């Protein structure tokens, strides 16, 4: 049954030349001396949300991890775990999304696996993608290269994906325009690589949102980070939805954004480089690496106060209090 699924549905949707023969493993060449390599699994619920689905997310998420190493994503593997009883039209839609996202991101699905598990074994679909990227330059410096004075940027408004997924859960009945920002960020990274050694660090703020990534940067660099609340770009629909549900948008996931650390002097050049890319609309300088030792992220608030932006813990939950 799985064989039929692979031959009749999966391969036709995804084959770009290498999948068709269904080899045990694919041999790839032309990747250079070093490669970027990553893997990620996707278990999002609901499977379909405004702006994407688990399929497009699985492509973008892995491509973005590769891009954040300064590498061009080129090949993906696709591991599917399907819950018995998953409607075929849903699987079809997800595969079309995978194919569309991959084509748009310029990556090829070159190998994969499919398993069916009994009802209750997976939330409809679980997907794993592993990705290979080609380094087209020296790659990024180690995190220790981050210094006091380095500027921190974000490529656009935050929290859109997390809030869109939250709002589209069946238990909430909101009307909203919010759409996930799920996208491949390689075009942004490609531009930013022009900064050369001025580009210090990249990360896509997925689970745990901007707060998680800023805390990671602080702990990797060993210096406290300071950000300005008023500089953090936020769509007004995200702000409103966050207020209604009592969720902090700085903790909500992003799937088409990057947090960038650059040498102080090139912060404005970075913004210039991103200026005409639609995906980076709203990009802004939000803060800096301070000279203080430590691993905290300090948020300077809109009323002139300050507080710690803590490492998020646990799932995002709506609250009434």
């Amino acid at each position: 049954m799985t064989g039929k699924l692979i031959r009749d549905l999966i391969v036709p949707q995804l084959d770009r030349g290498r999948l068709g023969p269904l080899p045990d493993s694919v041999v790839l060449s032309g990747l250079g001396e070093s490669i970027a390599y990553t893997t990620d699994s996707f278990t999002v619920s609901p499977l379909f949300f405004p702006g994407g689905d688990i399929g497009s997310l699985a492509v973008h998420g892995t491509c973005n991890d590769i891009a954040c190493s300064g590498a061009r994503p080129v090949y993906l593997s696709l591991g599917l775990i399907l819950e018995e009883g998953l409607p075929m039209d849903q699987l079809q839609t997800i595969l079309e999304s995978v194919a569309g996202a991959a084509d748009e991101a310029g990556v090829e699905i070159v190998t994969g696996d499919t398993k069916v598990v009994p009802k209750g074994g997976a939330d409809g679909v679980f997907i794993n993608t592993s990705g290979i990227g080609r380094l087209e330059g020296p790659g990024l410096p180690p995190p220790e290269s981050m210094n006091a004075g380095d500027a921190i940027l974000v490529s656009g408004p935050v929290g859109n994906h997390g809030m869109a997924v939250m709002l589209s859960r069946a238990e909430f009945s909101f009307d909203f325009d919010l759409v996930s920002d799920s996208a491949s960020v390689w075009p942004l990274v490609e531009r930013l690589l022009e900064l050369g050694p001025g580009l210090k660090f990249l990360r896509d703020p997925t689970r745990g949102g901007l707060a998680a990534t800023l805390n990671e940067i602080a702990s990797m660099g060993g210096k406290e980070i300071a950000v300005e609340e008023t500089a953090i770009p936020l769509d007004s629909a995200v702000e409103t939805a966050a207020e209604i549900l009592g969720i902090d948008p700085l903790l909500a996931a992003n799937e088409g954004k990057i947090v960038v650390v650059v040498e102080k002097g090139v912060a404005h050049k970075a913004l210039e480089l991103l200026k005409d890319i639609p995906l980076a609309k709203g990009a802004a300088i939000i803060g800096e690496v301070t000279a203080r030792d430590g691993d905290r992220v300090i948020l300077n608030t809109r009323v002139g106060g300050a507080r710690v932006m803590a490492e998020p813990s646990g799932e995002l939950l709506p609250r009434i209090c």
Partner: protein
Amino acid sequence: MKTSNEKGAAQALAGQIHSACAEASGELRFMEVCGTHTMAIHQTGLKTLLPENLRLVSGPGCPVCVTEMGFIDHSILMGKEHGACLVTFGDLIRVPGSLGSLAGYRAEGGDIRVIYSPMDAIDIALERPDRPTVFLGVGFETTIPTVAATVKTALARGVKNLYVLPAFKTIHPPLKILAEKEDLHGFLLPGHVSAIVGAACYEYLCRDFRKSAVVAGFGALDILLALRDLVSMTVAGEPELINDYKQVVRSEGNPTARSIIYEVFDPADAVWRGLGTIPGSGLAFKEPYTQFDAVAHFPVEVPEAEDDPRCQCASILTGARTPDKCGLFGKECTPDEPVGPCMVSSEGTCAAYYKYGKV
């Protein structure tokens, strides 16, 4: 409002607070009763704008914090022993009971739904008329009428399988106890509870207990304005009741909301985690709504649970101690592995301290 204006106004108010506090002979201590105020004060970074001798102490107005372990245990047992589908606000999910948290129960396969509005519980009940649906009823007067209205609606629609496990708390009984504390100068009163109960009903705080009291909204500027008024009154030795949230809070509150509450519920004694039983501080179903009472319909043996004796939530909830003085704080007790409810509740004092910290 433009950022520059917000900052400017905040600066001005903070300046006025500093001037007034400079005239005080010692420390000024005010209790913010409502957990949402605790959150807002931390989140907006207000603490860094206030003078050293102004101490804000968190009170027991955190419905999750004061919900006892037995409630969580009772809920889980109804799920396990009676096949009930549990429906709850997100706030309760990580509170530890003695049998674990609702999140833990869900991870084991328990049927529990997080909703935004109690009305959603009716839809969930109607999905499966053969299965009991139990709504976990926590909250103060802001939330209580929403559940009462839901129950009224359920009765009118003939919904037969919806129940509520009540653990509601009302504001005045604990406030009267706290007003006796000599070391508190006044109270920052909860803006949205007050929208329901009104501003006038707090008169006793200044009349009988000589405490300053201000009804406050939840924006940073609303809170700063309220603090300015609290400080000024206290320093002048003229404690009064002031409503600084008039755009939402009427003197008489919302009588329609209150009549909905008392159509469905009667006052009853309630157990507050950390404070013990406070007479008349809770609510119980009255006819013809007793058919919705989960306690009557689903008998369970709730284990005798004792709070960890090292947990200082009781003191923290009454403002007697700050989180950093609890031996478990940040060590055995963290937001990921909470010992007491003050740490797990999103608005709990300990959670706020841990997350926002001292800058």
